[in-house]
């Protein structure tokens, strides 16, 4: 019975994914999207991947990490260097870059994950912040990354023309993280969040699963980085400072800690919103901040709960079920 239920859920998820894809593709090829919004497609996907992966450490493991941009930059530079030094067709080059970027970021996930195992809460947050800055400084001073000048002329393997690939990668990320959370390993991670002493007492190796969460999150942040570098074409170390990390964290908090769907929706809203507000000119960032505050209040207030549990919605749901 349980299996049939999950299968139904799976079919529903796949259907939603395909519908979204068809809508976006038809908008894109029907010429209905302005240049402005067309250029936002890939950044939305990048932010979705970043937010969903950060949610694994922040929402599910319950540890505040402020160095996600660091992992992203490792992936971005590794991927960029792969494509810059390989002259192969995109079909080979880009997957190799993605893989290399993900693995490189994952290795950094281990390097950072192991020493911070003993830290929790605020201390961990500060240390991850510092690690992000260290990665930035290292990139800034290395020859291969071309220092502060950054890399340029990276082939645009991930611009809007290749939306299908990027969309697929985003979907894969969401499914992978979602499935991980509902697996034996994911339960262990959530148990550590809820009570690490009890988790240890029922035989879960806390350090092992903490590192696992860090590594998986870093891997996907690396993937996002590779997409970013092949979308923009140029890389500068300053792009990946702590502001970027905070930006991702804001998405996760707004979407709700431990809610993957929330992360996805928040990532879309918070990426598109600044562009929508462009007409407000100098008040843009002010409005953005106000909208952010209002959304945060709305999200944690009773209003949302009431709307979600209101008559109309539940009736709608019932109708749907009967249909």
């Amino acid at each position, binding site marked *: 019975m*349980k*299996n049939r239920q999950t299968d139904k859920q799976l079919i529903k998820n796949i259907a939603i994914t395909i519908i979204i894809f068809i809508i976006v593709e038809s908008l894109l090829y029907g010429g209905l999207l302005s240049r402005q919004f067309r250029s936002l497609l890939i950044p939305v996907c990048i932010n979705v991947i970043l937010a969903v992966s950060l949610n694994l450490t922040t929402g599910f493991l319950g540890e505040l990490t402020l160095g996600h941009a660091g992992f992203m930059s490792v992936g971005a530079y590794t991927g960029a260097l792969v494509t810059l030094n390989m002259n192969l067709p995109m079909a080979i080059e880009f997957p190799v870059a993605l893989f290399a970027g993900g693995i490189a970021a994952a290795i950094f996930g281990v390097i950072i994950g192991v020493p911070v195992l003993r830290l929790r809460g605020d201390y961990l947050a500060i240390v991850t912040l510092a690690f992000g800055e260290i990665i930035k400084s290292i990139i800034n001073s290395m020859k291969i990354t071309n220092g502060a000048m950054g890399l340029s002329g990276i082939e645009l393997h991930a611009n809007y023309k290749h939306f299908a690939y990027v969309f697929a990668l985003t979907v894969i990320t969401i*499914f*992978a993280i979602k*499935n*991980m959370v*509902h*697996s*034996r*390993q*994911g*339960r*262990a991670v*959530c*148990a550590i*969040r*809820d*009570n690490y*002493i*009890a*988790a*240890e*007492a*029922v*035989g*879960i*190796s*806390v350090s092992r699963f903490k590192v*696992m969460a860090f590594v998986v999150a870093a891997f996907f942040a690396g993937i996002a980085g590779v997409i970013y570098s092949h979308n923009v074409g140029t890389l500068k170390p300053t792009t990946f400072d702590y502001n970027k990390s905070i930006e991702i964290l804001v998405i996760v908090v707004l979407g709700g800690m*431990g809610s993957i769907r929330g992360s996805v929706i928040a990532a879309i809203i918070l990426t598109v919103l600044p562009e929508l507000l462009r007409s407000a000119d100098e008040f843009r960032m002010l409005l953005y901040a106000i909208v952010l505050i209002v959304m945060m209040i709305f999200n944690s207030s009773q209003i949302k709960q009431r709307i979600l549990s209101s008559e109309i919605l539940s009736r709608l749901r019932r109708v749907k079920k009967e249909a």
Partner: protein
Amino acid sequence: MALLEVKNLGISFGGLRAVDDFNISIEKGCLYGLIGPNGAGKTTVFNMLTGVYLPTDGSIILDGNNVVGKNPAQICQSGIARTFQNIRLFGKMSVLDNVKVALHNEYSYSLGSGILHLNKYKKTETAMNERALEILKVFDMNEQAHILSSNLPYGKQRKLEIARALATNPKLLLLDEPAAGMNPNETAELMDTISLIRDKFDITILLIEHDMKLVSGICEQLTVLNFGMVLTTGTPEAVLNDPEVVTAYLGE
């Protein structure tokens, strides 16, 4: 040979000798009670048995193997499970998931098959669900399997903690004040449950308790701890009538 053999166990926190020369020998299948006034070191003993504290000296032999120096997760895997004095559930997880977390080492599949939902994942998860529900049924909680564990009433939370500990398939179960905060009816029910699980799961139980009715009702052996030292050991009748115990703990 006894299932648990503790010899000369002791721990110092700086200059404070919290537990000194603690000896206990628990036969397989026994229901053993550890009692004593507040601050006597009962929970400290539990923390040493489960690897939370590293004893300063002494040995803990479980089924012939010394477990001193192992971490809590390893000790759990070698067969000692516990509950906590202040309830420690996984509050944001469902009742079923709380038990399934404890089944972690009993059922296994790789992260890859979990992410890809391979056959192994589906089979193992189904088996885990069945096993978890079976354990919950013993506590009459299978109906509440999908409730968030923090939403359970207090008595049920205590039971869930026991169910979770049992799910790790222990040889020895340590219960730290299982009846704390329960009314007489709930305590009576709990006594039945404790005896029941001892027989049903074929395990040995060591419990800390202040409720003398529970202790004298179900325990077969008692050890009294006072100021970190063993005052006396014996059957409940003998121990509870011992004048020394009466002065130190029960009151005249």
